[in-house]
């Protein structure tokens, strides 16, 4: 049974995404909407990780390395400026999508296992992850023409 592996992956990925949101928000604090929204979403990711904790314990904990590798690759160094903001948000977009598909996988497994409690957590959190992705896309779409065409 590999559910523990995926739970460990998602648990770690949410913790890392929380850290990523916080770091990107801090690096671009002059974009005040980015700063505040990143902080809000960082807390949301932490709450996701907390909600997963009992299931990590229930199914045993495995710690795949991929979320750590992904975190280091994406967030060890954040950038500055308009183009930097787009690239940093793109990194958040990648990590949030890694979480999103993991929620889907765990949702599938929770149905197969008839684990209602886990399914409830998945239902509550996967919508929030989807909204995080939607926000990143909305904000990046807004910024792209100005950044790519006009900003120096």
């Amino acid at each position: 049974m590999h559910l523990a592996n995926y739970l460990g992956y998602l648990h770690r990925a949410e913790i890392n995404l929380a850290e990523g949101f916080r770091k990107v928000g801090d690096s671009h604090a002059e974009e005040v909407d980015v700063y505040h929204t990143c902080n809000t979403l960082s807390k949301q990711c932490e709450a996701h990780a907390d909600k997963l904790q009992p299931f990590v314990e229930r199914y045993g904990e495995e710690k795949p390395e991929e979320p750590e590798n992904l975190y280091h690759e994406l967030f060890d160094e954040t950038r500055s400026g308009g183009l930097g903001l787009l690239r940093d948000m793109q990194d958040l977009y990648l990590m949030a999508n890694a979480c999103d598909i993991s929620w889907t996988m765990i949702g599938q497994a929770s149905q197969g296992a008839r684990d209602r409690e886990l399914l409830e957590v998945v239902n509550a959190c996967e919508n929030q992850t989807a909204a995080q992705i939607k926000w990143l896309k909305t904000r990046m779409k807004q910024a792209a023409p100005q950044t790519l065409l006009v900003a120096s």
Partner: protein
Amino acid sequence: MRENGELVEASWDEAMGRVVERSKEVLEEKGPLAFGFYTTGQLFLEEYYTLGVIGKAGLGTPHMDGNTRLCTATAAEALKQTFGTDGQPGSYADVDHADTICLYGHNVAETQAVLWMRMLDRLEGPNPPKLVVVDPRPTPAARRADVHLQVKNGTNMALMNGLLHEIIANRWYDEGYVAAHTLGFEDLRTTVEEYPPEKLAAICEVPENQIREAARIIGESERLLSTVLQGFYQSHQATAASCQVNNIHLIRGMIGKPGCGVLQMNGQPTAQNTRECGANGDMPAFRNWDNVEHIQELAELWNVERMKIPHWSSPTHAMQIWRYAEQGSIQLLWISATNPAVSLPELPRIREILEKEDLFVVVQDIFLTETARYADVVLPAATWGEKTGTFTNADRTVHLSEKAVDPPGETKSDLDIFLDYARRMDFRDKDGGPLIKWYNPESCFEAWKECSQGRPCDYTGLSYDKLRGSSGVQWPCNDEHPDGTERLYADGSFNTETDYCETYGRDLLTGAESTEVEHRALNTAGWAFLLAAEYQPPHEEPDEEYPFSYTTGRTIYHFHTRTKTARAPQLQSAAPDAWVELSPADAESLGVGEGDVVRVESPRGRLEAKARISGIKEGVVFAPFHYGYFDSDGPPRAANELTITEWDPASKQPLYRVGAVRVTRISDSGGMPAPAPTTTASAPSSGVSVPGTAAGGDAEVEEIVGKE
């Protein structure tokens, strides 16, 4: 025009020549995205529409907004999110029919005095309505209220969830209406379950029994009128909280019937037109920027290529326009009829932006405002009474305002200035004809009618002749409704059809936009959305260093930044200078007496003013936002020196009602009380003796009724 650092007089040819020359340079070097337009809620419909077409189809910039972003953006956003498009459901006439009136963050006696008179007629007459007021200050309306919920700043969302909790738990809602006309009730019910009165009493710092009593009055009413204004719109979770007012009406089935209205109010006289005409962050006639068919309609109407009209994301909101100017990617900023050097948040930052070398600033106004002093070119504009045009108020009533006197000197109407710019820039349609095909207010109104056809704000049944001699007609006015429409949504059918709506929806927490596909999947069939949201604490809360909560607002004697009202001697003498309000308990702990001078500081700036000890909520400091520097060279006194650069994620309206400050006493009163009016929410608290505000001989009028 600015020459060698000084503003000097110039002819129209010279001034417009300079604007056009710089426009062409910027267009050549950086393209249309380097242009920003920041307008107002105080021009006429025809002027906004012309400006909108110049920006969107002449230059092709998405960076157009108004100071309406500061006053009415949340009204528009809450209406769009709940009902599918902008458009006020109710009517002022609902005041005459209501059995209960709720004022949410709306100091109506000072912001809309005529509307308050209409309410007073009811309150003083037979069968007066019940009155519920949500406000941290003891406003004139709050003093008349059956229940005054003196909430802590920034907690509106918790309060609204609590009221909805009580209405649902006591089954005061209309199950039939909810089932037939709304989407999202289950989500709303589960969300508000977490907000029982005892919990939110602690969050909002309001007694539990008052919350229960307010909810009972609302829940047992039969004809409920709700109005909402800046106490909600400029506060934390603005759109989310304002949507909950809509939700109360929807779940009670109280919409579209006499006395049952929502009035999401406007802060300025023609803010409604800014929203309708696309001179703010919207497309004309409530079209959806994300709906290709809607943009195609505009392209055909204006005879331009669809690609010319920026519609790749939602039009840029004001705070982002200023951010782009700060970063240097907007290089020409054209400001009309507004005074951002006093009215925007965090003024030290705004002054720095206006001073930037690489930003060409055009200011078009009736007086040399604080902002005009930073301009490269100042265009002197006429005011209402000196020009003709239409304006539409918050309940959709369209009026014709005819020119009464000639404008002074060489002043031109805003319409003529915009038309002159379009001519000089030689904006063309795709067949080489002039882009702007109208030449005066009436011909522009006819063009606008065509633009509005088939949309919620349909003007096609109106004409200048029809408006002349009437006291206004409420849109939509068309073949189907030749006499206008008193209330929207009487049949419970809303503007949420995917092909018709103005927005595909937003997440209230982040502002994330939904797509057409997602919207279509909801299969709305004209149902309204019951949008739910959790309460989140404000981002900046009082702490040890800055222990007070800061809020700004208005007084009846002044409008906006006093550009006009400071020049009316009677108004000026009633409220001649800035002040700050403190509660008696806070004043005592600070050792501050009435009229003592205090310094108020936030992490962003400071002001100095005399203190008024008033009935304001303990822990809250208030400053009126009107006072700038055109008639004062004393210490900083503008309330916005202190405010925070932050905005609501959905409506993008700046948050003037949250923030933390500290207060220090700097000198005694010298025997003079604060210059705050005593007739308003600024009245001194009981036990503080201050001479009353009097109109004086200048304001006396004699009315002779009947023939002499």
